[in-house]
């Protein structure tokens, strides 16, 4: 694929214990334990509102946790949070500027994350993974929602980062592109990458499953002790 010789640190490990998270005064999940290490695929399943997206955003450091701790080991060092340099996150919004072409959007993303300018071949290869090669110079505003979603997924191979956080990556993808996504994930795992994906669909990738429904707070304890604020 795109970086032929890329191998990530095989010692990387991410462990969370008794994690709790609150959004808008409501406990989203409680007592969540998980562990992933280099080469792992973790799929998050669960009902709507069970906290799959919140969990991903918590790992990325956007949402603070109210209980428990995350330990992150990489390169012999231990930290309480992931370094943002190791994460690629693609959520429900695709983060594309409609007036700019896909090439400009992708080039900006690359420069934003690495400070460098991507080689045109690299951009072409990344675009071809999701069959976007012929659309590179089209303004994103004329893309269909599936094309936009694929353009967002293009970030994963485009910028080399060890930990991929995917929120509903298969939504709107046809069979060919789902297969391409599965191949991409498998390649990333083979390189020692970590993939955590929230999904309702089978991903065609072997890995651990974390069922978010089992971490729902018991009924009646959902209200916040600290009052409505």
């Amino acid at each position, binding site marked *: 694929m795109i970086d032929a010789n890329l191998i990530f640190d095989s010692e990387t490990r991410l462990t969370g214990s008794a994690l709790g998270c609150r959004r808008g005064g409501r406990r989203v999940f409680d007592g969540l334990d998980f562990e992933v290490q280099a080469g792992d695929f973790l799929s998050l399943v669960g009902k709507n509102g069970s906290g799959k997206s919140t969990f991903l955003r918590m790992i990325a450091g*956007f*949402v603070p946790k109210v209980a428990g701790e995350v330990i992150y080991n990489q390169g012999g060092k231990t930290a309480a949070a992931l370094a943002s340099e190791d994460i690629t996150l693609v959520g429900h919004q695709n983060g594309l500027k409609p007036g700019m072409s896909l090439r400009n959007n992708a080039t900006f993303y690359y420069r934003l994350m690495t400070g460098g300018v991507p080689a045109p071949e690299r951009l072409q290869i990344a675009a071809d993974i999701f069959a976007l090669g012929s659309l590179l110079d089209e303004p994103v505003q004329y893309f269909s929602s599936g094309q936009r979603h694929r353009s967002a997924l293009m970030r994963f191979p485009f910028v080399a980062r060890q930990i991929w956080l995917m929120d509903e990556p298969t939504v709107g993808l046809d069979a060919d592109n789902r297969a391409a996504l599965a191949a991409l994930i498998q390649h990333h795992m083979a390189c020692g990458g970590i993939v955590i994906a929230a999904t309702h669909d089978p991903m065609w990738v072997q890995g651990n499953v974390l069922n978010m429904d089992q971490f729902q707070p018991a009924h009646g304890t959902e209200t916040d002790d600290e009052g409505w604020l």
Partner: protein
Amino acid sequence: MSAQPSVSSVFVALVRRDMALAWSQGGASLLALGFFLIAVSLFPFGVGPEPQILARIAPGVIWVVALLACVVSLDRLYQADYEDGSLDDLTLSPLGLVGVAGAKVLAHWLSTTLPLAIAAPALAVLLNLPDAGYPVLVASLLIGTPALSLIGSIGASLTVAVRRGGVLMFLLILPLYVPTLIFGVGAVDAAVTMSDPLPHLALLAATTLVATVVGLAASAAALKLAME
């Protein structure tokens, strides 16, 4: 992993993208500049064409309208990125949120408020500003407009998650603009009345420096809150 990314080139990339977006179709810069030109040229119609009256109110009118034009353009400073999800990318970039706020404010100043300062002398002619006022008018706008972008950034970041947050932002920001307005207009008035504008300009510069320190930190904190 690859070498440590160069933060300065990431900063430059963000400034350039934001400037390009501001001047592209539907960008805020032309809107602000158009608002500035039209609103100032309405005053001679409103207060009548007497040259003395226009000359007396010229510094105040130009400063007040520049300030309003700035607020009009600030509405989307962070909101566009928040809504399309690119604020997530910006947060994960090596810049950090203070750097992101700094780059976005710099881009806003360069693309939107700086053109106002450049257009101001032409409008001052329309309002019959005395000759002695021109250099100080431009100088005061150059020194004071960064504070407008910086203080505005606080309001824009606080209201980023609020739908139709524009009115709220107006109410938050405009009172904070008062010191900048007083010192800016004071400097031009001093030059027109042949007294020393330097103390006013120095206080204006102090306002901008305070806004730099407070504005970026406060914007970063507000954005972090909005990311939840």
